[in-house]
C-alpha cells in the first residue's frame, strides 16, 4: 500500500486534533504548572516531626498564652490557648505572626556603630569588644568626674527580673539613674498610687466583678492591658451585666463595642470628669464616709461646683443628660474609671489623669470588690535601692551615657523627649534592640539583642491584673550568631569599667533568681500548661520543681490577697483647682488650626515591630492605616479645601511633614488623627533607620506629655 503525501498529512493533522481531546494537553498543563510551583522562586516546605509547645507571647507586657505548632523544631503557626488561667488566651494579629519577627528584614545580626550624628551618620559594623571598651572608658571618665552628666538606663518594660539587674547596675554607676518611659505603668493606677498611700501593695482593677467600666480613651479591645481578657468580659456582658462607657473623641473599635459612647472633644476630658463629679456630689451619690476620708474633699467640692453639666456640655460636646446618666451609672455599684494611654499619643496630662482617677475615690471604688483592689508585689520584684524615675522627670541635658533596653513595651514616645534629656552634645546612647528602628537614629551603638522566641523571656504581671503572676516565654528559634544578651553585655561593661560585677550575669540567671524568690516565699501556685493542674508552691519539694513547671509553659499565680488599708487619701493630690480654670468655658481654636493627635496601635508603632505578613491588614486592605497617613473627618477635609487621598503638609512648631489624607467619619471634626504606624514592607534602606515622621511633629510639654499639638494643614 502506498501512502500519499496527502494521506500522511491528513493522518498527522487528525492525530494532532485527536490529541487535543485526550488527557495529554491537560497533563502537560498540569506538569508545567507543577514545575513552576517548584522552581527556585517557590520556597520548599519544612518537613519533619510535628510537636506542640505551650509558651507565651513576649511581644508586649500582656503575655498572651501561645500554643506553637512546630515542624522539625521550627514554629510554623501560633495560636492562643483558650483555657489559659490568666484568661488571656487569644492572640492579636502581631502575636499570630510573632515567630516571623526574628527574620525581619531590619533585623540586626551584629553590633553596629554610627559614625557621626544626624542625617550624614553612617552605620558601620564594629566588634562587641570595641563597644564594651568605649562604653567602659566613658564610665571611667564619668567616675573620675572629668565629664559632666550622668549614666542612665531606660527600661522599656519595667517590673521584670532583668529590671532588677538594671537597677543594680545603675546603683554601681556614678550618678546612675533608672528610667521608665511614659505609659510604662497603667496611668490611672499610677495616679491612684500618687493620691493614696497603699504601703507595699499595688492597686489593680477588679474587672471580673465590676458592673461599669468608664473608659476615657482606653483601647480596651485594641491593646490596653490584655485585649483578649477584656474582649471576653465584653463578649459575655449579657451574662455578667457589664456596662461599658467609652469617652473618646474618635469612634474607635472600643467605642463601637461600648454600651454608650461619649464623643468628648479632645482636651476637655478633665471637664467631663469634673462634671461627673459635680453630679455625684450634687445628687448625693457618693458614700458619706468619703467626705471625711479625703483630705481635700471640700476643695474638690468647690472645684466641681464650677462644672455643672449644662455649662460643661458646651465645653465637652457631651449633653448634660449624658453626663448625669454616666455619673449615676458609675455610682450605682462597683465600677472602675480608667484614663487611657494611646500607644503613640501617650498619657493624659497629670491634671486630667487626676480628675479621671479621682472619680474612683469619689464613688468609693478603692478597696471595693469590683473596683480598685490591691495585689501583693511579685517576690523580689523591684527590690532595689535605686528608684525608678519617669523619663519626663529626669532633668534636661543631664544624661551623658544612656543605655536603652529595646524590649517592646508596645508604646512609643517622641524622640525629642529623649533627646532633651541628653547632654547638649547628644551624649552616648547604647541601644540594645533586635531591630533597626526609628529609635536607632539617635543611638551611637546598636547591640543586637535576641528577638521574640529566641530566648527565655519573662512574662511578668500584666498591667492592672488583680493577682501577681510569673511565666516564661520559651525559646522556639535558635539565636543567630552575634546576638548579645543585654544583661551579659552590661556585666561585661561593668567588669571592664572596674565596677563591681553584678551578681547575675545573664537574663536566664535573673529569671532563675526570681523563680527562686517565689519558691522561697511559698506563695501562690503553679498551673501546668499541659493539664491545667494546680500545684501550690508550698507543696513543692524544691525550687527545681517550680523552674521545671515554668520551663514547660506553666504559670505561677499569687494567692495572696491584700486589703486596702490606706492611711492617706487625696482626690486632687498636688493638682490645684487653677489647673482646670481654662476648661470652664468653651475654647475656640485659632483660625486655620487643627488639633494634631498621634495614634498608634499597641506593638505596631514602628516598622520593625511587626512581621511583614502584617501587610495583609496594613497595606493590602483598608483595615488599618499605614504610618504616614492622616485621618480627617470629611467636614474637616472640606473646610480646608482638601480631598480624600490628597498629599498634604502638616506643620507644627516642631516642623513640617508630608502625609496622605484619608477621609474618616469616625474622627471628630477639627482633629488631625496622625497614624504612627508601621510599614510592614517598607522600602527603607536597611542600613539607615527611617525618620520619625508624624510623631516627630508632636510637641512635648513640660510634664512630658504630647497628646494634643496645634497644627496647620495645607496641600503639599
Amino acid at each position, binding site marked *: 500500500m502506498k501512502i500519499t503525501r496527502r494521506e500522511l498529512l491528513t493522518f498527522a493533522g487528525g492525530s494532532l486534533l485527536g490529541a487535543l481531546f485526550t488527557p495529554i494537553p*491537560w497533563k502537560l*498543563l*498540569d506538569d508545567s*504548572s507543577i514545575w513552576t*510551583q517548584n*522552581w527556585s*522562586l*517557590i*520556597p*520548599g*516546605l*519544612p*518537613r519533619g516531626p510535628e510537636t506542640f509547645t505551650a509558651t507565651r507571647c513576649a511581644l508586649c507586657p500582656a503575655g498572651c498564652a501561645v500554643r506553637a505548632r512546630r515542624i522539625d523544631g*521550627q514554629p*510554623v*503557626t*501560633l*495560636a*492562643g490557648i483558650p483555657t489559659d488561667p490568666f484568661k488571656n488566651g*487569644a*492572640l*492579636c*494579629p502581631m502575636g*499570630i*505572626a510573632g*515567630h*516571623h519577627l*526574628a*527574620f*525581619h*528584614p531590619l533585623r540586626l545580626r551584629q553590633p553596629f556603630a554610627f559614625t557621626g550624628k544626624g542625617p550624614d551618620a553612617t552605620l558601620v559594623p564594629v566588634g562587641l569588644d570595641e563597644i564594651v571598651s568605649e562604653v567602659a572608658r566613658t564610665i571611667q571618665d564619668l567616675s573620675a568626674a572629668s565629664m559632666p552628666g550622668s549614666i542612665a538606663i531606660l527600661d522599656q518594660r519595667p517590673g521584670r527580673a532583668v529590671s532588677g539587674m538594671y537597677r543594680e547596675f545603675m546603683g554601681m554607676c556614678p550618678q546612675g539613674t533608672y528610667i521608665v518611659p511614659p505609659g510604662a505603668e497603667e496611668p490611672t493606677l499610677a495616679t491612684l498610687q500618687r493620691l493614696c498611700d497603699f504601703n507595699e501593695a499595688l492597686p489593680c482593677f477588679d474587672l471580673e466583678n465590676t458592673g461599669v467600666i468608664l473608659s476615657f480613651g482606653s483601647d480596651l*479591645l*485594641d491593646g490596653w492591658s490584655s485585649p*483578649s481578657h477584656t474582649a471576653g468580659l465584653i463578649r459575655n456582658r449579657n451574662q455578667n451585666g457589664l456596662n461599658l462607657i467609652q469617652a473618646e473623641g474618635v*469612634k474607635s*473599635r472600643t467605642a*463601637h*463595642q461600648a454600651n454608650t459612647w461619649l*464623643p468628648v472633644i479632645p482636651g476637655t476630658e478633665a471637664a467631663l470628669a469634673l462634671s461627673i463629679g459635680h453630679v455625684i456630689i450634687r445628687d448625693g451619690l457618693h458614700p458619706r464616709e468619703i467626705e471625711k476620708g479625703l483630705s481635700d474633699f471640700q476643695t474638690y467640692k468647690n472645684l466641681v461646683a464650677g462644672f455643672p453639666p449644662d455649662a460643661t456640655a458646651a465645653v465637652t460636646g457631651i449633653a448634660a443628660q449624658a453626663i448625669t446618666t454616666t455619673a449615676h451609672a458609675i455610682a450605682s455599684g462597683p465600677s472602675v474609671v480608667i484614663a487611657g494611654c494611646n500607644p503613640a499619643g501617650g498619657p493624659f496630662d497629670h491634671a486630667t489623669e487626676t480628675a479621671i482617677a479621682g472619680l474612683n475615690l469619689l464613688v468609693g471604688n478603692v478597696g471595693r470588690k469590683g473596683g480598685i483592689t490591691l495585689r501583693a508585689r511579685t517576690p523580689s520584684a523591684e527590690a532595689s535601692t535605686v528608684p525608678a524615675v519617669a523619663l519626663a522627670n529626669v532633668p534636661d541635658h543631664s544624661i551623658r551615657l544612656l543605655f536603652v533596653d529595646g524590649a517592646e513595651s508596645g508604646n512609643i514616645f517622641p524622640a525629642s523627649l529623649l533627646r532633651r534629656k541628653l547632654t547638649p552634645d547628644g551624649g552616648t546612647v547604647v541601644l540594645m534592640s533586635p531591630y533597626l528602628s526609628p529609635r536607632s537614629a539617635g543611638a551611637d551603638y546598636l547591640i543586637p539583642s535576641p528577638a521574640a522566641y529566641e530566648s527565655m523571656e519573662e512574662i511578668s504581671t500584666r498591667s492592672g491584673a488583680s493577682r501577681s503572676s510569673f511565666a516564661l516565654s520559651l525559646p522556639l528559634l535558635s539565636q543567630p550568631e552575634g546576638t548579645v544578651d543585654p544583661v551579659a553585655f552590661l556585666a561585661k561593661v561593668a567588669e571592664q569599667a572596674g565596677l563591681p560585677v553584678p551578681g547575675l550575669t545573664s537574663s536566664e540567671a535573673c529569671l532563675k533568681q526570681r523563680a527562686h524568690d517565689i519558691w522561697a516565699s511559698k506563695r501562690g501556685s503553679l498551673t501546668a500548661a499541659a493539664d491545667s493542674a494546680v500545684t501550690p508552691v508550698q507543696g513543692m519539694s524544691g525550687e527545681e520543681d517550680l523552674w521545671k513547671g515554668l520551663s514547660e509553659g506553666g504559670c505561677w499565680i499569687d494567692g495572696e490577697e491584700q486589703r486596702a488599708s490606706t492611711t492617706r487619701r487625696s482626690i486632687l493630690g498636688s493638682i490645684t483647682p487653677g489647673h482646670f480654670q481654662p476648661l470652664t468655658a468653651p475654647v475656640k481654636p485659632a483660625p486655620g488650626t487643627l488639633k494634631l493627635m498621634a495614634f498608634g496601635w499597641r506593638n505596631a508603632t514602628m516598622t520593625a515591630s511587626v*512581621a*511583614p*505578613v*502584617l*501587610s*495583609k*491588614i496594613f*497595606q*493590602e*486592605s*483598608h*483595615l*488599618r492605616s499605614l504610618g504616614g497617613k492622616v485621618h480627617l*473627618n470629611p*467636614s474637616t477635609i472640606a473646610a480646608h479645601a482638601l480631598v480624600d487621598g490628597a498629599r498634604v503638609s502638616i506643620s507644627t512648631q516642631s516642623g513640617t511633614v508630608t502625609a496622605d489624607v484619608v477621609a474618616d*467619619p*469616625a*474622627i*471628630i471634626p477639627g482633629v488631625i488623627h496622625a497614624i504612627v504606624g508601621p510599614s*510592614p*514592607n517598607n522600602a527603607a534602606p536597611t542600613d539607615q533607620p527611617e525618620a520619625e515622621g508624624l510623631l516627630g511633629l508632636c510637641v512635648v510639654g513640660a510634664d512630658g506629655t504630647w497628646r494634643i499639638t496645634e497644627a496647620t494643614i495645607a496641600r503639599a
Partner: protein
Amino acid sequence: MEQTAQSKSQYGMVIDLDRCTGCGACMVACAVENNVAPAEQKATDRTGNTWLRVYTVTNGEEFRDLDTVFVPMGCQQCGTHTPCVSVCPQNAVEVDHATGIVAQIPQRCLGCRYCMAACPYHARYFNWWDPQWPKGTESLLNPDVAPRMRGVVEKCNFCHGRLHTARTKAAAEGKKGIEPGDYIPACVESCPSQAIVFGDLADESSTVAQLSRSSDTFQFLPGLGTAPKVSYHSAREWVRKMAARVPTA
C-alpha cells in the same frame, strides 16, 4: 476520607458582625496558615492577596450618629449557580460535594481571571508577584499548604489543609467521620471575640446550623441565588439591608 465523603457534610460558618471588632487577627492567621506571602512593596488593596478580608462599612451618618460594622469577607462557598465554577475555562474551580467546599486548583489555573470578574463577593485574588518571604521565614511555612506561583488565582478554601489533617487523624483512630472540634479553620481559631462559628450545616444539631437559621442571620446578596454557606448575623437593621443591596456601578 471515603468515610467522610459518605457523610455529605456541608461546611459553613456564621459570622456575628456585632461581635467583630475589626482587629484583623483572622486575616493574619489565614495568611500564616495558608502560606500567603507578604505583600510586594508596590501591592495595594487592589493588587494584594488576602484570602479573607475585613471590610469597614459605615451607616453613612455624621460623626456623632456614625455606626460602623466590620465585615470579614472570604469565599462565600456558594452552594448553587457557583459563578466562578461556571466561568472557569480550565476546570480549575470545583465544588467538593462531600464537603460543600469550593476548591481552587492552582495547577490548572491559567490566570485568565474570569472567576474574579464573576465573583459577586470580590473574594478571589490574583497572584501578581512571585510569592516571597523574608530570608529565613521559609522554614516557618505551613507544610500542609503548597505555596502558589505567580499568575494564578487564589481564594479561601476553609483551610483545606486542616480538613486533611482532621481526616487523617480520624482515619488513624478508626473513626467514620471527623470530630467537629478537629476541623476548625484558622480564622475561627484566632478570633479573640469568638465572632465566627464554623461547622457542618448539614448536621441539624450543630451550633452553626442552628445559628444559620436564627433571626437576624442573613447572607450577602441573597437575590443572586448563589446560596452562600457563609452567613452573617447582626441585630442592626441597616447592616442587614446593606447586605442585601446589590452595588451599582
